């Protein structure tokens, strides 16, 4: 039987050998970590802001049904529509129905992770509606035909050289070269601007939903969200049911920690508040739809994993995760990578290999430390390991550990056998301090030496010095 971790291991091995990816990761990581640290340092008491944000998320999850009901009622009263998508298939169907009803042929898209989760672009394409990403990162990976590798910076895995190559391939550049980052941004802007004007519908995600006023909050740094939401005649917000909070006060508690945790900004360049077009509004889309995806999230309410729904998708956990930083997002084979993805993917998608993602952590705890809403990610990963140990039962790993545990449960036998073994090993190694080769230790010794034991076990030496007093 192949361990389900093998897929992740194979992908991560490829990622470790991918020099472009490694260059992109090495470039991105210090920036994220440093910027967050400076942003946090500028706040008098970031821990207090975190505690408040966590309390907001916990309260909203406690009464999620009533907040959602209020949200729907307010959106409807203002002339918009709320749609409930139990599954990703439902979300695709709902969006396509709306798009078809408007006769849409092209759709601009702001970044929506729920759209990624539901593979919305593929569905739109199949229906003959051209999806056009407007977030620069999403635009790049759309050109590349790849999924995002980070929930905030979807094209984080791409180097500038690779992006230039994509633009050279797909854009009509004539004599122009794309020497600087500014050239690249200008080029993308020129193309994407045209797409805004052609689009029949605009699809965005939402960072927060405010029940009190039926408002969708969207945080962007490029202003693409606003153009996507306001230029076409129809605006569709695709997001998930867990995003709702009670009030503007609650929303602002989240905004205070979101950008600081994500990109180290006090607030994103654009923080937009969308709703149906009001009576006195001079402009804006005539049709406003919010599609709320469940996709097993409601099953997490009241479960051991409810805390995962506190997530506000800031990406701090992956920015600080040594495993994510080593292998990048694509190794996780999910739109949600890193620690939050390692928890969310098995719970939302639940393919057999997904549970193995929970093993890919040293439990270093940095994700929990930086999480702005206090999600105990290591504890949740451990619970997933418990679930898969129960289901999987008897892999070679558990047998070894169970064997060791059995031995450890018999202290006399443990002490006798370990002292004998360590003394023997120390004798074999002679005066060598370390081993380069040893049967059965290949996985450790492939990359590092192993210090030989000093002699027989401490407990043996101690009892011997004390005249074997533990015989009692």
């Amino acid at each position, binding site marked *: 039987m192949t361990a389900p*971790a093998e897929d992740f*291991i194979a992908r*991560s*091995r490829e990622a*470790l050998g991918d020099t472009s990816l490694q260059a992109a990761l090495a470039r991105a990581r210090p920036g994220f970590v440093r910027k967050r640290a400076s942003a946090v340092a500028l706040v008098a008491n970031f821990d207090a802001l975190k505690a408040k944000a966590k309390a907001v998320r916990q309260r909203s999850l406690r009464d999620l049904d009533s907040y959602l009901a209020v949200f729907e009622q307010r959106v409807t009263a203002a002339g918009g529509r709320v749609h409930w998508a139990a599954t990703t298939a439902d979300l695709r169907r709902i969006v396509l129905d709306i798009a078809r009803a408007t006769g849409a042929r092209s759709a601009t898209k702001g970044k929506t992770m729920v759209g990624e989760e539901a593979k919305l672009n593929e569905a739109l394409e199949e229906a003959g509606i051209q999806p056009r990403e407007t977030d620069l990162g999403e635009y790049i990976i759309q050109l590349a035909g790849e999924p995002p590798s980070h929930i905030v910076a979807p094209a984080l895995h791409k180097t500038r050289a690779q992006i230039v190559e994509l633009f050279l391939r797909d854009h009509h550049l004539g004599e122009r070269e794309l020497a600087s980052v500014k050239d690249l941004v200008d080029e993308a802007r020129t193309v994407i601007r045209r797409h805004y004007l052609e689009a029949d519908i605009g699809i965005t995600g939402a960072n927060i939903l405010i029940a009190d006023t039926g408002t969708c909050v969207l945080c962007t740094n490029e202003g693409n969200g606003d153009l996507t939401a306001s230029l076409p005649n129809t605006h569709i917000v695709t997001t998930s049911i867990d995003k709702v909070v009670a009030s503007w006060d609650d929303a602002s508690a989240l905004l205070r920690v979101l950008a600081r945790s994500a990109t180290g900004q006090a607030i994103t360049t654009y923080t937009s508040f969308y709703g149906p077009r009001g009576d006195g509004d001079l402009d804006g889309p005539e049709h406003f739809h919010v599609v709320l995806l469940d996709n097993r999230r409601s099953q997490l309410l009241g479960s051991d994993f409810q805390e995962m729904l506190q997530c506000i998708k800031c990406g701090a956990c992956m920015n600080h995760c*040594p*495993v994510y930083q*080593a292998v990048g997002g694509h190794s996780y084979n999910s739109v949600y990578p890193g620690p939050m993805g390692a928890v969310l993917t098995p719970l939302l998608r639940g393919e057999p290999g997904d549970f193995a993602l929970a*093993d*890919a*952590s*040293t*439990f*270093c*705890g*940095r994700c929990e*430390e930086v999480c702005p809403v206090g999600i105990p990610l290591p*504890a949740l990963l*451990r619970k*997933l*390991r*418990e*679930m*898969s*140990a*129960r289901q999987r039962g008897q892999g070679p*790993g*558990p047998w070894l*550990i*169970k064997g*060791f*545990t059995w*031995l*450890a*449960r018999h*202290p006399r036998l443990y*002490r006798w056998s*370990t002292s004998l*073994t*360590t003394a023997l090993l120390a004798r074999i190694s002679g*005066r060598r*301090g*370390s081993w*380069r080769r040893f049967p059965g230790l290949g*996985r*450790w010794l*492939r*990359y*590092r*030496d*192993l*210090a030989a*034991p*000093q002699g027989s*076990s*401490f*407990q043996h*030496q*101690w009892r011997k010095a004390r005249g074997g007093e*533990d015989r009692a």
Partner: protein
Amino acid sequence: MPASTPAPKIGLFVTCPVDLMRPSVAFACIKLLEDAGCEVVVPPQSCCGQVAWNNGLSGEARTLARQVVAAFAAVDYVVAPSGSCASMLKNHYPTLFADSDELARVEAFSARVYELTVFLHDVLGVQSNSPAPAENSKTVAYHDSCAGLRELGIRQQPRALARHYRGVHLGDLEDSETCCGFGGTFCVKFADISNHMVTAKARQVAALHPDLLLGGDLSCLLNLAGKLRRQGDRDTRVFHIAEFLAGWDDRPALGWEE
């Protein structure tokens, strides 16, 4: 501590890596604790259950936890030379028994558990007000192990103790809060990723080029020392903080021949 106060009775929780690989760490702990006026006992012991717990085998972990709690029933404090094992005993045991009627007993046990440097510094009050004169001009770096750092808040204690006992300032590695890649079974299950992580750590050690590299968790040190040695580093001598505080860094370093 005043002479009239009876010496606190310490149960030393040795930890598996120290018991099996490097007994000198445990002997150093005993010396430090006895010098600080404690009585030290070593109840018969084995594994704390962390390996099982972290691999999803909570039943096995509970069995071992009960054994540890019982073995250390008669001591005032339980001290372990490891942030990760100490945190298992202190923070994770109560989680393991959260829904059980054994919880009160386990919590009473966990409240008495301390990592070595925390115990010396915070509980016994070994202070750095009059630091020892610097013995030499060695550069000494400290690796903050993750569980100690984040689950027990160990950061200034080993640094203060190094000043107090040895007059030495401990240098920080760049990225000192990043994991070395050990992670228990992680380092063999995900050998390539673990290697990537420990290689980065070794690079940071090389950048600082210390004479000594110290840490509070032997397992992380086995990972680091093994990597340094594989890379041909014959300069950086790796010791557990207990050995260094006891002044035993003139003995063979971790992984070095005698």
